[in-house]
């Protein structure tokens, strides 16, 4: 319970800091405390729904949210999620883990080179 709260605090801070859901923090930490990869990713999505709504609300108060642009990427993404979750059930767990690690390396490289 205490570990889950700490995961939430770290995820919430990084989520609002960088405009991401926090799953990049939540999933590895859930794996670290013993979750299986599919449970970790599914539970992460549930937590992110709360995290992102809270973060969007805070930024909306500052007047920084652009709802039309949010719909532009958010609604297509909702369709993509169906594809992603369906695919996830058909790919071996270890393959998902390696793909996830490769994704993180790719994003990190992009951030270090472009940022």
């Amino acid at each position: 319970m205490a570990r889950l709260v700490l995961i939430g605090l770290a995820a919430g801070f990084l989520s609002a800091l960088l405009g991401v859901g926090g799953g990049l923090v939540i999933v590895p930490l859930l794996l670290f405390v013993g979750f299986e990869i599919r449970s970790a990713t599914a539970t992460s999505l549930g937590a992110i729904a709360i995290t992102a709504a809270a973060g969007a609300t805070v930024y909306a108060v500052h007047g920084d949210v652009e709802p039309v642009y949010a719909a532009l990427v958010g609604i297509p993404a909702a369709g993509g999620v169906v594809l992603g979750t369906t695919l996830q059930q058909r790919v071996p767990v270890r393959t998902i883990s390696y793909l996830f690690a490769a994704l993180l390396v790719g994003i990190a490289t992009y951030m270090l080179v472009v940022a």
Partner: protein
Amino acid sequence: MTYVAAVVLGVAAGGLSGMFGIGGGTLFVPTLIAVGLTQVHAEATSLLAIVPAVLVGVWRQQSYGNVRWRAAVTIGVASAAAVVGGAAVALALPSSDLERIFAVLLLLTAGQIARQARNSRERT
């Protein structure tokens, strides 16, 4: 960057979200910057865009029986308490510095995930 490309990247972000349990913001933010938003507006808008994507993801994962609700709500509520601090720091610091710090965190995390996957070979 056309709006068609933004839609395509939205679908891709959603697919990654469903596969890996992330919100999709890692693709939303660069996409929104490419269509003309500032860094802060892109981050703020990304958070709103994440909500419909993860709600669909949770609905799908629930049908597979993968969601552990008590853990999800505990993490989510705790995170809501921390977002005010994260937003305040984001508005105060240069984003390029923050991105570099986060990139290092991603690399360390990737190593951890790959190591666990290798160690779990016999059990899966």
